[in-house]
């Protein structure tokens, strides 16, 4: 019986092909999130909407009316997805990028802080890792500080860094980037220490039989071995760097950047603005991680390590 039943069910399911790949499952999850978002928006915005109805002495408001009203409030507790999308469209496509009201302008400010901080952080992370791997003294003396640096809440230390750097006359992009650096050097250090220590004994023995110097062993063995670790750490590092850039924008009085948009939004109860900045930050983080992923694939392919 099953012999005939099986092909029949396969051929009648029009989604079989779609769900076989990754597109189907990704779409299903996306739709589920949007669906839950809408339900939550209606539920969370209903109390405020009912207050309006009460003051207007409106009774017997049909459910469909309630739903459409809760999804169109100016300052909703939770904005509906289409409101956020509309706001993003208005502040990116319809505004000039040089305008202070353009989300592209603010995203660019945050992005440049993120990239500068990430660059310094990655360099610092690699340098620290090289020191830690090659010197027992540095391993014992530096590693505890590296680890304990990450146990301090970044929100507590960020204003201190900004204030101290301002006091010595450094302002602008660099103080904010330092906070990105503070968050992003850590995964790179830990990943690179692990990577530089990962060559097999047999490979180290081989270099020993060639009487290779430490420098030669580093460039010809340890560093290539650590490259996959480096990319994994950089993916974590760049996301952390973005968080650092946003946090770094908060204590500066919120002049520009996605952090500023979040802060300004919360001052004035502009929840739609907050959510559009949040979505932009998420999109930016995703793009940056994906970009490193692309570079990783290219680099590993060139090195013959991606099959």
């Amino acid at each position, binding site marked *: 019986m099953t012999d005939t039943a099986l092909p029949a069910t396969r051929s009648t399911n029009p989604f079989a092909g779609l769900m076989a790949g990754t597109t189907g499952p990704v779409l299903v999850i996306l739709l589920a999130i949007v669906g839950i978002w809408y339900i939550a928006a209606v539920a969370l915005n209903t109390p405020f909407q009912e207050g309006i109805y009460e003051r207007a002495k409106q009774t017997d408001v049909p459910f469909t009316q309630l739903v459409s009203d809760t999804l169109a409030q100016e300052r909703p507790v939770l904005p509906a997805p289409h409101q956020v999308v509309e706001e993003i469209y208005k502040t990116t496509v319809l505004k000039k990028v040089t305008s202070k009201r353009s989300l592209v302008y603010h995203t660019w400010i945050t992005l440049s802080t993120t990239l500068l901080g990430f660059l310094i952080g990655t360099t610092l992370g690699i340098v620290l890792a090289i020191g830690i791997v090659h010197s027992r003294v540095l391993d014992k003396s530096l590693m505890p500080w590296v680890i304990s640096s990450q146990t301090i809440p970044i929100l507590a230390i960020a204003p201190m860094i900004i204030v101290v750097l301002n006091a010595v006359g450094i302002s602008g992009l660099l103080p904010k980037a330092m906070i990105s650096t503070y968050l992003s050097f850590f995964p790179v250090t830990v990943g690179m220490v692990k990577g530089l220590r990962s060559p097999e004994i*047999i*490979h180290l023995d081989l*270099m020993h*039989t060639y*009487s290779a110097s430490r420098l030669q062993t580093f460039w010809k063995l340890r560093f*290539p071995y650590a490259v996959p670790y480096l990319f994994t750490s950089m993916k974590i590092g760049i996301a952390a760097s973005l968080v650092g850039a946003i946090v770094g924008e908060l204590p500066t009085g919120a002049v520009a950047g996605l952090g500023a948009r979040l802060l300004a939004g919360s001052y004035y109860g502009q929840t739609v603005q907050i959510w559009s900045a949040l979505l932009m930050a998420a999109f930016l983080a995703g793009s940056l991680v994906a970009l490193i992923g692309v570079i990783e694939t290219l680099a590993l392919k060139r090195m*013959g*390590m991606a099959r």
Partner: protein
Amino acid sequence: MVIDIDNLSLTFQTNDGPVHALSDIDLQIDEGDFVSFIGPSGCGKTTLLRVIADLEQPTAGTITVNGLTPHEARLKRAYGYVFQAAALYPWRTIAGNIALPLEIMGLSKAEQRARIAKNMELVNLAGFEKKFPWQLSGGMQQRASIARALSVEPDLLLMDEPFGALDEIVRDHLNDQLHQLWAKTNKTVVFVTHSIPEAVYLSTKIVVLCPRPGRIYDVIESDLPRERTLDMRESPEFLKIAHRVREGLKAGHSYDD
């Protein structure tokens, strides 16, 4: 004399007390010899090879390589070492892997290219220069690692069970190739194995070791002709030597457990 070992011992200090890996080793290896170390695991055959290569330090006795200490000999790159695994770098092509020691030695690009071509030819791998290690079979990878060791152009080749992980058919083939290579180049080879036919087929001298403590039980000078073929393995002379090796292993309590 290439290698002279006199009353050498090596004791590892472990948490469970001292382990006598090598005890009172006396051995001379002459130029052009093909010497096999054979014995069960734990007899110290690999450790002895590593002492010659300056990868382990003896705790007593003396050893010279080309009249120098193993450390000095290593700094002069007096030997090529072939490990149990091919140990090729996955991010380098086969040619790139063979170039590795040559880059470390600081040879010119032209000299590197010449040596790569010559040694890949020698191990029958010509045409595979641009392949990555994972694109090659296990036997080909090990041949590439032999080419890498040869490219240093050492007079002494140290080989630690180079064919141990390969199947018998590939192994026979590589044994034959290694024998021809040795006959052609007249290098001194020290070869670690736990295969009796492999040891007898390849060697001019077979050193039988036994465990606990690791020591030399018997040294057999082979009276087989220098030129050898795989068919020889059924000849009475071959079987006589194989028998003596087996008896040595048995008498040295190698088969106890």
